[in-house]
């Protein structure tokens, strides 16, 4: 908050698109709401797993508590769960998660019709596509400005659990799907494996890469602000807290300076690019090490049930 975030997403343990070490015990959500509100920011809960049918009633009970504690919104993926939450808590803002993989304007209309008022744009969309969405529909768009492009569309990929899926139950009785990002567990990032390519029995390439690049939207931020996008989002949960703070502060400063500068006058991004280069190094190093460890973990045998 002190670095300038206006809103923070927190995942209750077992219910968000991250492994449990990046989630909060339920009671901590209450404290997180207090901290966020004290800092003038919003606290939203990330209930964005693709849950099981029988998990919807307990999810609604959880949501009841979160709403009572004052959360400002919920980010979700499963359309059935969204519809149930909207029915039960009509005034709660529902955000469609990146996992909902909203790709076109008609998708946005569909999600609006079931009670969604904010959507996270897929990271592959172009500025032209985003402009079309913003102009054509009164919908809140959240743009990831500091994240990774996966090879596949997020929410439409189960390469990781195809190779390793470990199903367990946590102490609260919640099913865990270690290996499936869509179902709440971690992603082993198997797309980043050093793949050989074969045609039949013949090896054609010793190493091929399924493109997966980090992206840091800097040059586009002024245009996004001009378009009326009012929520820029940073993937932060898996990085060290000081690094997340540094990234937030960087973008806060950039946004504030751009908004304050006289319209029609050139805005020089050069100094920002230089600063970002330093931040990128730390972020990429952290991510690279995580990927290396995940690929090792993905090769471990699944313990017998």
């Amino acid at each position: 908050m002190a670095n300038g975030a206006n809103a923070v997403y927190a995942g209750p343990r077992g219910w968000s698109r991250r492994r449990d070490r990046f989630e909060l015990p339920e009671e901590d959500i209450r404290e997180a709401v207090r901290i966020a509100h004290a800092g003038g920011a919003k606290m939203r809960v990330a209930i964005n797993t693709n849950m099981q049918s029988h998990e919807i009633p307990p999810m609604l009970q959880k949501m009841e508590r979160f709403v009572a504690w004052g959360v400002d919104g919920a980010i979700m993926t499963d359309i059935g769960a969204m519809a149930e939450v909207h029915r039960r808590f009509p005034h709660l803002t529902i955000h469609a998660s990146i996992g909902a993989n909203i790709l076109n304007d008609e998708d946005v209309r569909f999600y609006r019709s079931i009670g969604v008022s904010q959507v996270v744009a897929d990271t592959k969309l172009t500025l032209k596509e985003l402009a079309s969405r913003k102009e054509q529909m009164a919908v809140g768009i959240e743009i990831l400005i500091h994240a990774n492009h996966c090879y596949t569309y997020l929410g439409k990929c189960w390469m990781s659990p195809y190779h390793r899926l470990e199903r367990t139950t946590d102490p609260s009785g919640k099913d865990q799907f270690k290996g499936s990002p869509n179902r709440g567990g971690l992603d082993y990032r198997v797309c980043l494996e050093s793949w050989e390519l074969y045609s039949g029995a013949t090896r054609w390439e010793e190493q091929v890469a399924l493109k997966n690049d980090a992206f840091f939207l800097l040059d586009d931020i002024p245009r996004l602000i001009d378009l009326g996008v009012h929520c820029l989002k940073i993937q932060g949960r898996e990085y060290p807290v000081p690094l997340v703070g540094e990234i937030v502060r960087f973008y806060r400063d950039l946004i504030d300076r751009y908004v304050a500068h006289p319209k029609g006058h050139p805005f020089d991004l050069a100094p920002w690019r230089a600063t970002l280069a330093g931040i990128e190094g730390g972020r990429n190093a952290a991510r690279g090490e995580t990927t290396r460890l995940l690929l090792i973990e993905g090769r471990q045998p699944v313990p017998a049930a």
Partner: protein
Amino acid sequence: MSGFELNTSIANLRDLRASDLGAYDAIYLGDIYCRLYEANFLERPDDLREGIRILREQGKRPYVATYAAPRNDFLPRIQKTLEVAATAGAEAVEIHNLGVLKIAHDQFPGLPVHVGGFANVYTDAGVEVLRGFGAVRFTPNYELSLDEIREIVTTCQAPMELLVHGKMPLGVSDYCFLLEYEEKWGIKCPDLCQKDLFLKQGDWAMKSVGKGILSGKDVCMLEHLPRLLADGHRHFRIETLSESPEYRREVAGVYREALGRAADAPFDLDTGWWNVVRAHARIGVCNGFYFGKSGMDYAGIRPEAVGSLLTISPSAQ
């Protein structure tokens, strides 16, 4: 129709004409991954009409697929595809994208919709939402186990369509990495993705069809057919979009015969069936996520019948 439906998918007229579809009840027309796929039905309205006509003439149910991940610029073409499906006599369209579902519901309300595997059907509540938009059949997300699928069916009484054999879709992209090799290999799009390409590393393997990533192993539910029937399932897919006409014909023949006998007790597995499966599974077989395990695992009750298919065989490397 028999007591069950066996269906598959075919991308273009050439493959349709080359395939013996005798063992199938229904065919999905079109490649869902790429607009540039060779002579894709979904880009050629005249071919699509002809495909529907051929299938009707053969007494098969023509279904029309739509793209798995359509962006704004796909939508006019998809609208045209839906129009052809509605006017040329398709019996249903398969839809993976919820925006396209909305278009179909708003503009073609009489057209039955089958919700595809990329639409992320994970819950009974999700099925109810989709029903409100006219969906009549559902392919659950491939990550669901049979127990989880049963949970949905019990609540919703919704007809499910299950992949019983073939390469399971694992992901879809907007980018085809094979294009980076056009010059080096001297092979151009749209021939590139038809070269039977596998990504391998150790005992991991996936099939690449360019923008689509499929399982390296073939999902094989042959010995579990009695369980599927007992759970009330009647719609079964053999995924052959990226396979040869021989694969399409022979594997379907096995399943047609096996499904006919699956209600018998005991269900007698024919050795000849395994030989056919073995001949066509280059990397091996798996059960996908149906038993709550890693998708590449095989949880057979007769693993000896599958033998070396359980792992990548040296000859395949």
